[in-house]
């Protein structure tokens, strides 16, 4: 049973050049990222701070960007062959939920157009009323009433309704893999749970989900397996219960330790001290040598400075750190 999705040593470099003969500024958005999702439907969370490269991974999987080196395989076949030879089928099987509910709707058209084009493009219905029933079924599945939603313009819908509308679009398509890039970060806390419940339900309908977020709470809530990414490199991965309950990598520890618990009796016990390296803006690395977390790590050793720690298996989890 080959993997549904696999990334092998993917590297993505962004160069910022301008016209007047200047030396290009090289930024490593992703350096040597490898992970895979097997065919069995699951929710895999990719957790990282802003600038860690998680959105770049999303764009690479959807073919909106090409990797500088390394390979992306979908069902064992390289992505570029999918995009060249049967783009339609790939688009049918791999779909996306964007972060900003206000920007994913073209303000010029009514919202129904999004569902109609999906049905026409992938000819999911033989005639109009089959299409209509598919649309209603899709909206019902995400708790929206067709009567209230259809026929309206995007600005007449709330943020929560719009994100669920996008879920309905995915539901109609029945993709194999749904990539969700920070789908709930723009929603109020009270609406998040209902959206995330629907994502969980999708798993029962055989739809796997790559859930990209900076918020460990929501990742813990819905995912089965979790990857921690920092400055373009995967530092730790494993089943979510294990990684949250006993984090291995110092960075994961620091993340979990920084998340406030909504309970006055469980306040933070330690005090964070500033490290001066935090002064400058962090966005990707210009150089590649050594562990990416070296200058913020409390356990940094001489070894960590110049060579990159390989991925080691510890129990069910894997971690890239010389401590193990």
């Amino acid at each position, binding site marked *: 049973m080959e993997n549904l999705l696999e990334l092998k040593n993917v590297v993505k470099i962004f160069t910022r050049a301008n016209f007047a003969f200047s030396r290009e500024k090289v930024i490593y958005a992703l350096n040597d990222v490898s992970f895979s999702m097997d065919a069995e439907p699951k929710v895999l969370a990719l957790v990282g701070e802003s600038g860690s490269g998680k959105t770049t991974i999303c764009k690479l999987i*959807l073919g909106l960007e090409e990797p500088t080196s390394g390979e992306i395989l979908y069902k064992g076949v390289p992505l570029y062959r999918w995009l060249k030879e049967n783009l339609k089928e790939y688009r049918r099987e791999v779909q*996306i939920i*964007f972060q900003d509910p206000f*920007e994913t709707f*073209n303000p010029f058209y009514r919202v129904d157009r999004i569902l109609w084009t999906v049905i026409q*493009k992938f000819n999911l219905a033989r005639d109009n009323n089959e299409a209509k029933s598919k649309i209603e079924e899709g909206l019902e599945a995400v708790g929206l009433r067709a009567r209230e939603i259809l026929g309206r313009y995007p600005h007449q819908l709330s943020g929560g309704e719009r994100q669920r509308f996008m879920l309905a679009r995915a539901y109609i398509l029945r993709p194999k893999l749904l990539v969700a890039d920070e789908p709930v970060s723009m929603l109020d806390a009270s609406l998040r749970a209902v959206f995330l419940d629907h994502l969980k339900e999708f798993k029962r309908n055989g739809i796997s989900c790559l859930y990209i977020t900076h918020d460990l709470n929501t990742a813990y809530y819905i995912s089965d397996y979790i990857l921690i990414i920092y400055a373009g490199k995967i530092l730790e991965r494993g089943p979510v219960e294990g990684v949250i309950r006993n984090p291995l990598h110092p960075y994961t520890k620091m993340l979990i330790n920084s998340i406030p618990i909504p309970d006055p009796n469980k306040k933070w016990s330690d005090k964070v001290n500033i490290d001066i390296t935090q002064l400058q803006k962090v966005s990707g690395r210009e150089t590649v040598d050594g562990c990416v977390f070296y200058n913020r790590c409390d356990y940094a050793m001489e070894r960590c400075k110049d060579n990159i720690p390989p991925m080691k298996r510890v129990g069910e989890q894997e971690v890239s750190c010389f401590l193990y």
Partner: protein
Amino acid sequence: MRIFKSSPKFTVGVIIISILIVIALLEPTINNHRLGGHSSTEIGLYETSLPPSKEHPFGTDAYGRDVFSLILTGLKYSLLIGFIAGGLATLIAVVLATTAGYKGGWLDAFITTVSNAILIIPSWPILAIIVLFVRKVDLFFLSLILAFFSWAGSSRQIKPQIASLKERPYVELARVTAFSDIEIMFKEILPNFLPYIFVGFSYAVTGTMMAETALRLVGLGPADIPSLGQILNWALYAGALAQGHYFLVLTPIVILILLFVSINLINVGLDEVYNPRLKQITGV
């Protein structure tokens, strides 16, 4: 359209420009009726330099032509050149701006530098020399060179919009729904882009009209096309100022100013409606 209610500037601009356009369109019938079939540029129809009267609301000029009809013809030709050259310039601007905005990178930087260069360098002396030394200057050639120098202005208005529209998530959503590039361009980007094309177009029209009037004022360009600039030239060279025929000089200027101001009002009105922060301040 909600826009009329929310921006008085836009409404005033639209009213003035529509009146002027309607008059220009009716020019052939009005002049036929007034001049009994003669063309308004025909010399010696009436006595020379008559003061304004009922029959000749703007009087007559030194060559015995009725100024009112002359102005109408002038308005027609000025608008004609303005819209042809302006349309051409906008076409060039939209094509170059979209390729630059859509492709980005090296091509984008190159086109921006070229358009900035054209903007920075004073175009009038170059235009004047070209028109002077080219033997045969017809309407088409004049519009072409006018368009060449004014596309830069409108491309500067259009390009930032294209670049920002291309980045919008709904374009990426379209790409993920297997839309082809063409479909994305025309179905997703173009509809939201129309207001900006109009802004670019109005910049081009005012730009070319100003340049054309400047050329004709000093007597350059095709004499057989009596635009408002040409009428002004005739008036000045006939010593209208010295002889006190101020009306002859004032009327073409006032109409030109009306043209430029009304088009600009439309632009400012559009900008206030589409620019959230300006809108917020004006309480709309």
